[in-house]
């Protein structure tokens, strides 16, 4: 008897760590780095209980492999295992190392929001949610104490914090106050629920039809921007899983490139930037397997896009202050909106 989530979560953590160390997690990779893998697992799991799963701490214990270090190791016969215990682990602020030093003191925050939405046939929204995260990259000397305040903190519905955030202050004043870990970390993830109306920044016009008699079908998609507050929609990518009966597609895009894989029946169309004056479209015909009846479901369209400098929920960071250290840090903030699981039913 063991909580299943506990096991699953740990396995995911292991895979994440391997990806962090080696870039990919595959059989070949594990064979190549069996020593390091063993060392890492040793640290992560102690007598069946997870021990150090924080990537920062692990990296201090066991240095990630680099070419130089591999060469040194083969010559000297030493291993990657650090001979010192990580310093931060035993302190009051276990997530931060002591004695951090930078010449340029900078703190960057990325507000990234993902829209999960299901749009039905007629173009009306069935569900739409915004999931947001604030990723931070903090390179500050010493023990800085940061406070981050929002213009409209009430927007945030369901939040989960990095352990460094002082929850009391958030509850009472809606201010994020924390001593940041060193380097990259996820400060906060939040959820803006469907209750607040979510503005969908793009629309898709589609016309997909199969005819009963002939083995040809028509296919037409147009993507256009909507409520983007003047920002351009970038990195648009349309993918759609075609029904099994579709043999091939002959399509001509007005912009971008498209690929249809006849084996997996996956159509993907890389649109790129949307120019509001000239909307990108993809037109053409599908050839169906002869003899089979028309598929009874139209394919759903998955959409991906990015909008820079816009948080679609309207969240705005008010100010960032630092206490506890004397220097003046360089502060930066970036907003981005992405499509999460964005589906259009046809």
């Amino acid at each position, binding site marked *: 008897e063991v909580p299943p989530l506990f096991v699953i979560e740990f396995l995911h953590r292991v895979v994440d760590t391997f990806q962090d160390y080696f870039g990919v997690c595959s059989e070949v990779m594990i064979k190549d780095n069996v020593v390091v893998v063993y060392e890492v697992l040793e640290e992560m799991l102690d007598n069946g209980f997870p021990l150090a799963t924080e990537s920062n701490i692990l990296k201090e214990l066991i240095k990630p492999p680099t070419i130089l270090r591999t060469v040194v190791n083969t010559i000297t016969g030493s291993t990657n295992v650090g001979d010192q215990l990580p310093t931060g682990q*035993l302190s009051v602020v276990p997530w931060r190392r002591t004695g951090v030093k930078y010449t340029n003191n900078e703190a960057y925050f990325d507000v990234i929001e993902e829209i999960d939405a*299901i749009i*039905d046939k007629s173009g009306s929204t069935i569900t739409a949610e915004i999931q947001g995260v604030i990723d931070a990259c903090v390179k500050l000397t010493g023990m800085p104490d940061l406070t981050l305040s929002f213009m409209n903190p009430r927007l945030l519905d*369901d939040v989960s914090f990095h352990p460094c955030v002082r929850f009391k202050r958030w509850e009472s004043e809606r201010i994020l106050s924390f001593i940041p870990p060193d380097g990259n970390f996820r400060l906060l993830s939040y959820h803006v629920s469907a209750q607040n109306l979510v503005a969908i920044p793009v629309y898709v016009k589609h016309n997909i039809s199969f005819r009963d008699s002939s083995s040809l079908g028509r296919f037409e998609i147009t993507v256009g921007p909507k409520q983007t507050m003047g920002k351009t929609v970038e990195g648009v990518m349309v993918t759609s899983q075609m029904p*099994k009966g579709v043999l091939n597609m002959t399509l001509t895009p007005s912009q971008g490139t498209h690929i249809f894989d006849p084996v997996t029946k996956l159509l993907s169309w890389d649109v790129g930037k949307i120019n509001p004056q000239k909307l990108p479209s993809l037109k053409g015909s599908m050839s169906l397997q002869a003899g089979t009846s028309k598929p*009874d*479901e139209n394919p759903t369209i998955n959409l991906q896009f990015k909008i820079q400098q816009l948080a679609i929920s309207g969240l705005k960071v008010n100010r960032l202050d630092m206490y506890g250290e004397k220097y003046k840090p360089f502060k930066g903030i970036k907003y981005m909106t992405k499509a999460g699981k964005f589906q259009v039913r046809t």
Partner: protein
Amino acid sequence: VVMAVAQLYFHLAPKAEVGVIAKALVRLLRSHSEVQYVVLQNVATMSIKRRGMFEPYLKSFYIRSTDPTQIKILKLEVLTNLANETNISTILREFQTYIRSMDKDFVAATIQAIGRCATNIGKVRDTCLNGLVQLLSNRDELVVAESVVVIKKLLQMQPAQHSEIIKHMAKLTDNIQVPMARASILWLIGEYCEHVPKIAPDVLRKMAKSFTNEEDIVKLQVINLAAKLYLTNSKQSKLLTQYVLNLAKYDQNYDIRDRARFIRQLIVPTEKSGALNKYAKKLFLAQKPAPILESSFKDRDHFQLGSLSHLLNAKAVGYQELPDWPDEAPDPSVRNVEVPEWTKCTSREKRKEKVEKPFYSDSEGESGPTESADSEPESVSEESGRRRSSWRAREEEEEEEEEEGAKKAKKKKASQGRKSHTETSSEEASASESSSSGSDSGSEAEAKRRKVPPSSRAGPKEISLLDLDDFTPPPPQPVPSSSIVSTSLVTDLEGLTLTDTSLAPALLSPAFGAVRTYELLHRMAGEGLSVEYCFSRRPFPGDPHMVAIQIQISNNTDAEVKSLRVSEPKPLSGMRIQEFPEIERLAPGDTASVVMGIDFCDSTQAANFQLCTHTRHFYVSIQPPVGELMAPVFMSENEFKKEQGKLTGMSEITEKLMLPEKCWSDHAIVQQVTVAANVGRVPCGADNEYRFAAKTVTSGSLVLITLERREGAVAQLTVNSEKMVIGTMLVKDIVQALAQ
């Protein structure tokens, strides 16, 4: 973590508060698909019991075409559970979309779900039925078959109005190949053959023709249909029935042969046929209750949420049932996090006042207003100087203790306590000796008992509770270390163990119990204000050279005590005192806990200072046992040996001792030593050797302790330390602790 909290909330929380976890669980749905799967299963179980919980998040369970089938089906399950009059229309609209999905398993599940919605919500039954009938014309066979089965179940609830549908379905028998569906149709026609008198014999005719090629389940239904028709409409179907029965007689499946034989005897009138014949019609055409379509998750809720057993719907090895609610309310004191019993002392106060003589500052014990009932006072008294001193470590009572027994024990104990107050010191020694021998036997039980109170404390101190669970080895006293786990444990145990001790003027400090509390100011001497302190063994924030002392001040007077503070510290040379912040006011019956730091300069000289209230000044002094003047350090075996090599000669003190029987186990030895002194254990290769290391708080010089067990009870204790005085005292303390 979220799941664990959800589990707690689901089982314990009142209705109003469960909404909190729904939100968190819905958020979990965004992570990996495996996590989704587990969470959805739990949500499905929860949604049966507490539907309202997830209703606001209905839309989060809408299905995306990219979800794996498993998750789709689970989401469907949740949606069906959540369906009610208000949201059924939206849900049904969603379902309509799903029906056109490419994933056929999922479509089948959707149809089932529609069926369940229809049974649960009467209003939409007709709509559902119409929708399902439309599905009958679907080109996909699986879909049709599935809808036939569901329609059958629905029709059973209100057959009269739907003869049209039955007719329609009868026509379908020609096309449908899925045996389950065919059987369902046949059953329907048989059951309601009065409603469709014309078609039924016709269907039977067709089926009789293809009888040999059918699946077993269909054959059985054909026989059923034949029998029913024979009873209602024997004119048209007599020959057909006989034909079918004859065919069945030579079937390969004995089930079918048996059925045929049974039915033939039952319905065909012969000379021999007995009384049963008359009732045949009643038997076959009895009113049958409509089946109830239920969630497959209904039976899962007896497993604990979030457990593996719940996921598998089978008992996994090591699964522990949730205990039932306790019959009687647990002692409310278990909910207090800090020292729980302070408020209850007043009742016993009067009784004791007669006996106790007020002492100045370090007065006699029995001040601890514990309600510890059953615990043997594990005490040893010693004559030291002109003052009597008795240490008495007490355990908190078990909460399950019955009231009456508790009262008796209290009385007994009170008398015992009284005795020890009034009698002369020599007598006291003998009395306490006897009680300590009693405690020997009780020590095992005591260890068990100690584990009970923390685990039964639910509520406010969740984190420490978890820590205790993690702390698997049974020692009730934590091995002091700077790790978070054990320090929080220490504070926990502080709350549990109440010790009555008068201040020891001598340097002796034998150790029993966990973290011990010493008295700074007795209630009588302090005019109702009593102050106790203990060494929390945590690094003092702000100054690492100071020993942290946790002070418990409780106001037993009827009036408020104002502006409590430390004043006029008169430290000896080099000693420093970090006062605690002034306490503005302390209401009657209240207890305040503060931490102050004292730099004892690695000496056991007492620190004297005044404790002031708005009316009075009390002279008090704190004397540290030598074991508290150090903090544990961690080192490896090799480091230990290296350091030990440097500290030989003058700085090495060795003493032989006999280990009493109860200290033979490793665990007991480690426990005794760590209680006597704030040291950390050093790993050691040899079985019979124990090593500990610490640093003195002020100067940071190393103190290394080695305990080597020889044959039998003989052991040798070696202490290596630069500070010879500390070393000698420590040896004395540890020997005494081990000899107990």
